[in-house]
């Protein structure tokens, strides 16, 4: 399941970047595009191993930057940091409850644009920032937070669909069946 799971996470990262680049609905409605990658990195860190975390951060970041005027790779360090922190704390962090998942996704979505901006400003890029950027940041936090529990639900369903589930033991046992009447 591990390799299948990693490949599925990469596929979801691929589709998420495609969706962000091709769908402008959030931008029209809310004035900002929501980034799904931080939430996905939280999921990856909490449920998979470190190779999947590094691969998803690297590929997801490069795919995202290839559609953007960001310097190529500028998104990778922040995604990697989010994933590795989640992976390191996976034993300590409560990750079964949707509320906790929302919280981790929101924190990651708040951190990711700030860290990417920090990287870009340090290498001399001058992005467009103004008061509306605060609103966009809030939309990204909320959107990323809401996406994270959805991500857990989606992968749980995929897991059920693709992985062999052993049949549950039932209370009925044929060797203890009481047969009544003459036979």
């Amino acid at each position, binding site marked *: 399941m591990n390799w299948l799971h990693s490949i599925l996470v990469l596929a979801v990262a691929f*589709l998420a*970047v495609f969706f962000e680049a091709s769908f402008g609905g959030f931008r*029209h409605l809310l004035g900002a595009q929501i980034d799904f990658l931080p939430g996905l990195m939280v999921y990856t860190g909490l449920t998979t191993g470190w190779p999947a975390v*590094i691969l998803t951060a690297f590929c997801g970041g490069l795919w995202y930057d*290839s559609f953007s005027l960001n*310097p*190529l*790779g*500028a998104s990778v360090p922040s995604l990697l940091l989010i994933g590795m922190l989640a992976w390191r704390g996976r034993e300590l962090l409560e990750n079964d409850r949707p509320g906790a998942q929302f919280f981790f996704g929101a924190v990651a979505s708040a951190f990711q644009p700030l860290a990417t901006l920090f990287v870009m400003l340090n290498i001399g890029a001058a992005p467009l920032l103004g008061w509306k950027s605060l609103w966009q940041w809030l939309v990204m936090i909320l959107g990323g937070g809401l996406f994270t529990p959805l991500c857990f639900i989606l992968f749980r369903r995929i897991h059920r669909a693709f992985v062999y589930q052993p049949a549950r033991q039932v209370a009925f046992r044929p060797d203890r069946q009481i047969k009544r009447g003459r036979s």
Partner: protein
Amino acid sequence: MFKKPHYLISVLVVLLVAVLVKLPGGTMGKAKLAISGLFLPLFGLAVSTHATTAHAADSFVSKTELTRQNDALRRENVELKFLLQQDAALRNENARLHKWASWSPQRFSKGRLARVIARDPANWWRSVEIDLGGRDGIKTNDAVLTPDGLVGRIQSVGQMRSVVILLGDPGLRVAALIPNNGKTGIINSSLASPPESDMVEMDYLTGGGVVQKGQTVETWGEGGVFPAHIPIGTIVDVRVKESGLAPEARVRLAADIGALQEVWVMTP
């Protein structure tokens, strides 16, 4: 710490990223187009799905409606042919007058219609990707416009796709002119006000008369990137900077940058 493989590989990834972010502009543009080329099948799928949906929707339109639309288009076609004839006559007359006055005639650019296939997912840049590239004759710095006005210029060119940097992005500055009063300036991104998608600033206003709300702004033609007289937008308000050196004006863009579906790329 570096005995643990995940730390070692993380550091290697960060080092690789440090090399990537420092790639020269042209190489980085080509690398980005190559990576985003992985998404071409998905874009193709999206286009065919859209076409199928449109085809399915077409089957519900009544014949009466189609006939009415056909009549309207026929009338518009006749009007446009008439205007084209007038335009050709005016162009000939203009060329003749240019010849008599010994002026070099204005060169008219050709163009190609392109479809916008992707937008910048980051909220702090303004760029789009179009479905024309080097094999279609597109070159870096070609002007990109819509029937309403200027949109931007070609930033990088791939074989089949190109990246367009849009007006309002910090990386694009355009020499502009207010034809009413002859004032010139530079169209820049709007940093002081919220970065609305339809608003830019016109800085370094020099020469000419008074700048007023409602005046139109167009390309100046200086610098050699954009041809002259392409509409950019209209003046919304004027203010003097804190430094007091030169006034600046806010300009509402003529083209709807946020809802681009198709654009016209001017090729020399």
